[in-house]
């Protein structure tokens, strides 16, 4: 414990999470997720527009009706996959963090991080219901 009091880098009573190491690991995860999603999105949109340049710019995505995009369906499927990877990236960040706090025995932060995961899951349900 430093002279200024406890810090985020000090471990909890007991082992505690190595915050620096977790931070680096999360950075790698975030980068991998966002780069792969960007590739999928770029390819998907290019293919979609290439297959059907007459598409309206403001047409919305219905995940249950991807086949209704006609000839551009392969492109929109790739684009939807890109969105899925992009949205999964912060979720994966939360899951990895949850596991790290659980392994370190920090039950209070396991609860905090689990609550975030519950809210994200609720968002999916609310969108489907609304």
């Amino acid at each position, binding site marked *: 414990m*430093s*002279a*200024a*009091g*406890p*810090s*985020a*880098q*000090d471990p*909890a009573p007991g082992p505690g999470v190595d*915050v*620096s190491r*977790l*931070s*680096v690991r*999360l*950075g*790698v995860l*975030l*980068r991998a*997720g*966002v780069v792969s*999603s*960007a590739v999928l*999105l*770029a390819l998907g*949109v290019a293919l979609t*527009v290439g297959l059907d*340049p*007459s*598409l309206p*710019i*403001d*047409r*919305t*995505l*219905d*995940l249950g009706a991807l086949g209704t995009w006609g000839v551009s369906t392969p492109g929109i499927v790739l684009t*939807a996959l*890109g*969105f899925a990877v*992009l*949205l999964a*990236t*912060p979720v994966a*960040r939360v899951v990895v963090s949850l596991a790290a706090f659980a392994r370190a025995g920090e039950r*209070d*932060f396991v609860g*905090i991080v689990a*609550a*975030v995961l519950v*809210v*994200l899951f*609720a*968002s*999916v349900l*609310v*969108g*489907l219901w*609304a």
Partner: protein
Amino acid sequence: MLALVLLGILFLAVAAGVLGSLLGLGGGMVIVPGLVLLFGLDVHLAIAASLISIIATSAGSASRYARRGLLHLRLGFFLEVATAVGGLLGAVLTAVVLVGPVGTTVLFLIFAVVAVSAMGLVLRDLRRGGVVEPAPDPVADRWRLHGEMPGEGSVPARPFRVGRVREGLALSLVAGVASGLLGIGGGLYKVPAMTGLMGVPFKMASATSSLMIGVTAAAGALVYLTHGSVPPLVAAPVAVGTLAGTTVGTRLHAVASSRLLRMVFLAVVLVAVVFMVLRGLGVTSVA
């Protein structure tokens, strides 16, 4: 023609990405007005597309800040509960409640109010000359939220104490609602909350905000996506463009001064306020 429009959207997104990564924001304050005013997009669709892109901005920026030890993970997770709940609520309000001509006008005016309030928070921070030193807070002690700013070059590492956690949580909830409601990351509330209220150094607050806005935006974006409200031909180039913009922005972050970053923030928000008020009053798009 469609290809040209997509290129224009891509360019807008790159500019937003640069600003977003520099300021700990998601770029939504640039993207939403830009899509509405320059490309004539419905504001609800612009908000949905912006939230998708904010996730890309967050991941791109935060991955770089992680290597530099600038992420205050414990505080970020702690505040994320509030911002995620807020993001969900805000998205429901926009997607379900604030629809039609009246709802749309209300959205524009709320955008202006939120932006002006954020400017006030940053100005208050600026007048104090930077980070406050909050009074001791047992909540911060209990949850081990105090931190240490890593050293850079000849500047040694500097521990700091975090305070006013309850106020920070409340403001984080507001930031989350603003995020889901308006397609912004909420960093315009989170960063001043962490610096002006809680005592976190600006660069760490900005970096931590960059991480947090990913989850905040995801909470809202998941609502829009499952609700069928995301325009993929807009959202995809916006996401790719903002990611490219953050690549440039985070490289500038290391050399930009905290005061300069906050001044840029004020200028950007002021421009956004002017345009959104004009739009709310019935000024048509440029496109």
